[in-house]
């Protein structure tokens, strides 16, 4: 029965009475999409993505009363997930907004004559390039949104995307070039 309710109705139940069934319906509805997003951002690190997903839901559930419903619930959830990803990167000293210096494509990543697939290329890219490609090209964020979410300027976002796409192409075609 809870499956038929809107996100807002479910969230209201969670807030008003701690309704676990309502929370479960929200979890089932949104987790696969947000987890897929986190899995890609972390370069396929399932354990890290699960930790981030857990923290995202905990923050969302505890902060439901503050959610104004000016955006879709999932958009809000994705925003929390991205913040958690940033926070984790900060704690681990990883740069996810920039890649400094020239980046060299790793060798021996593709069989000669073969083109590696995009998913694998995204995993092999440094976090700074991967993040911008996932947000802009896979998820459709604008440069303004990316700048706001990652705390960088629109210009930095654009230049990072430019470098990231170049690096991605180099990786995708690495096998073809060595054929």
């Amino acid at each position: 029965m809870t499956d038929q309710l809107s996100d807002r109705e479910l969230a209201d139940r969670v807030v008003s009475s701690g309704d676990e069934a309502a929370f479960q319906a929200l979890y089932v509805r949104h987790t696969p999409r947000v987890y897929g997003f986190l899995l890609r951002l972390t370069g396929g690190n399932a354990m890290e993505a699960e930790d981030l997903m857990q923290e995202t839901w905990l923050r969302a559930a505890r902060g439901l009363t503050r959610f104004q419903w000016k955006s879709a619930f999932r958009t809000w959830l994705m925003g929390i997930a991205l913040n958690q990803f940033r926070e984790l990167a900060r704690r681990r000293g990883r740069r996810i907004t920039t890649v400094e210096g020239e980046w060299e494509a790793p060798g021996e990543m593709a069989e000669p004559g073969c083109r590696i697939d995009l998913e694998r290329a995204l995993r092999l890219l440094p976090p700074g390039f991967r993040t911008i490609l996932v947000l802009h090209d896979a998820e459709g964020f604008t440069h303004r949104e990316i700048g706001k979410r990652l705390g960088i300027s629109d210009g930095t976002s654009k230049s990072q995307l430019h470098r990231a796409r170049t690096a991605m192409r180099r990786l995708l075609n690495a096998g073809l070039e060595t054929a």
Partner: protein
Amino acid sequence: MNDDVELTPEEKMEFDNLPREASPSEFLWERIVRALREDGTLRSAAGATGTAAGSPVAAPGTPGLPVSHWRSDRSGRWVRPWVVAAASMAASLVLFGSGVLMGQWMGARSTERAFLAVREQDSAQLAQRIQEAGTAYVSALVALSELRATAGPDTGRGRSASSAQAAAEVQQGREAALGALYGAAIELTRITPGDPDVSRILQILKERQLHGTWAGGTRMTVWY
């Protein structure tokens, strides 16, 4: 400058075709719900009724039953004082005995519950430790693979020394990772002796160790 690396239609299609959804492990839900129940954000319907129904607290009135029974059963005829005294003493003894028994029973129950709660907490903490260690293990492997990737092939332009050092470090990390995997597989077979997948993993690792293909060279890891 920034718009000259536009995605080609093929690349755009590849991005569009990337799968958008993935399924986390079944334990994630349990971890989240447990945390939210603990801080009171969620209230489990099953948990709430279960607590009430399964409460070991005795039904109201049970301990007082002997007193009311003695009083209501008294006849209207005259009773000698020593009989009253004996009856009172007997009643007191019955009350005292039942009180002691009830106390022991309640004490045993609460000790049992406390013991179970401690055990449950310990298992939860252990599960969390395993999760944290697993995350650290995988993250270290990711960093190692990035190191391997950035080290790249030896170009012969003054990078040979650093490349060789990086390769040695990667090999050491790989050996340590395999060793940890081997140890984990052994413990997992102890936990779930009948699991064929775990047994297979252990078998593969044993064979690798047996045939000396563990780290592809000299053992470099010092175990703590």
